[in-house]
């Protein structure tokens, strides 16, 4: 079983689904305009103050593009007074002045997403010419003004040959860490799954060939780091739905911030309690030893098998012959 917490110390929020890019794979199916059901900035400020009062000390903010949320910098400054804040962004709105504004608002870390180590690969996904150079410039600006900065890459067929180049680029830019993330079958990614998803063996081969430059840290959640972090995870998406983890957004709802609090949902939502308890059919001993949790990621386990207790097919020891480059029929978009 997993460790048990009476209240979550860390929370992730997707503050908006508005974004100026149009990524082919976007998990949130984001568009230029915010959706009408989104929490207003006032509702978010109130909710975040409540989170802090309820013991949350680390707040991860993503989107969409968080910087597009009107009033975002004020909200960030307010949150950063009592919580370590992280902002995940594609970076195209971060020039030197915005980097300074983020620093002055007290941000703890900025995570800049790219979809490749070259303009053509990145922009094949984003559909926005010039967006790669803008993301790279954002990293440069953030590092120059002393903001701890990571780069993130979702591993796909198109960018697998460029992951090493991304590590080298990130190290050269002064980023502290690169996170290579698995591709999740969510939002628009489902529509192009077969075009962009790699079989597990190719994913492992890509990761196994990486040489991490001195001074850079590589974060990856494949074997032997396949954790089941549901036991400590808490997340809310733009419309206020409490989903436990952004990767569970299409599968669960533990309530909505408009009608309950996150702490109340943490204590009472039955499925959340089941997921946090971490009962699974099988575990990889190496990953359990390294991560102190069992069974690997629940989002991918559920996506492929339709059971919360199923083995995670992204783990080599639990894959059982599942071809990750093919989506189960159940998940195919209508």
């Amino acid at each position, binding site marked *: 079983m997993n*460790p*048990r*917490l*009476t209240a979550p*110390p860390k929370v992730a929020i997707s503050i908006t689904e508005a974004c100026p890019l149009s990524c082919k794979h976007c998990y949130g199916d984001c568009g230029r305009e915010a959706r009408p059901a989104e929490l207003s900035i006032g509702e978010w400020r109130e909710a975040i103050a409540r989170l802090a009062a309820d*013991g949350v*000390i*680390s707040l991860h903010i993503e989107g969409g593009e968080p910087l597009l949320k009107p009033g975002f910098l004020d909200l960030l400054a307010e949150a*950063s*007074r*009592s*919580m*370590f*804040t992280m902002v995940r962004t594609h970076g195209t709105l971060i020039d030197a002045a915005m980097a300074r504004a983020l620093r002055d608002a*007290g*941000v*703890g*870390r900025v995570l800049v997403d790219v979809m490749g180590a070259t303009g053509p690969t990145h922009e094949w996904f984003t559909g926005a010419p010039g967006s790669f150079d803008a993301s790279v410039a954002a990293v440069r600006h953030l590092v120059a003004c002393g903001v*701890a900065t990571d780069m993130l890459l979702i591993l796909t067929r198109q960018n697998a040959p460029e992951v090493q180049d991304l590590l080298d680029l990130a190290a050269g830019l002064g980023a502290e860490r690169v996170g290579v993330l698995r591709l999740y079958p969510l939002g628009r990614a489902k529509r192009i799954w077969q075009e962009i998803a790699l079989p597990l063996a190719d994913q492992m081969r890509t990761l196994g060939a990486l040489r991490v430059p001195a001074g850079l840290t590589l974060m990856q959640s494949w074997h032997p780091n396949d954790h089941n972090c549901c036991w400590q995870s808490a997340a809310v998406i733009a419309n206020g739905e409490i989903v436990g983890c952004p990767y569970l957004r299409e599968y669960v709802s533990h309530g909505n911030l408009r009608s309950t609090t996150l702490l109340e949902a943490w204590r009472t939502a039955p499925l959340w309690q089941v997921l946090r308890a971490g009962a699974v059919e099988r575990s990889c001993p190496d990953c359990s030893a390294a991560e102190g949790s069992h069974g690997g990621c629940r989002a991918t386990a559920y996506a492929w098998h339709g059971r919360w207790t199923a083995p995670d097919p992204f783990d080599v020891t639990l894959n059982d012959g599942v071809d990750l480059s093919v989506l189960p029929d159940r998940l195919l978009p209508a």
Partner: protein
Amino acid sequence: MTVSISVFCPTDCFRLEPGVRLRPVPELGHCLAYTPARPALHRLNPSAWLLAELADGRPLAAIAADFGEAMAEIGGEAKLSDVEAALVGLIELGIVGKLATPATEGSQNA
């Protein structure tokens, strides 16, 4: 004979730096400490956690006495040099700060 030399003056007092927030996670046996002036989240082990809780503006000797008492309750002991070293660590992280004179009662709310 060994003479231990303190890194602190006898009149030095210690308290949490302004804005620092402690978030105990007793289920995992640690405490998270957030330092907004230098944004970072630190994980304190039980003795660093206890020391951070005891740093309420009093001098080293008083903090060390309470620390030693708490350690004795669980069958342990604490040398002054260990307490000093742990305090140095907390100061370096920006969690605890040094005051030149003892804080008077209520001064933290002034």
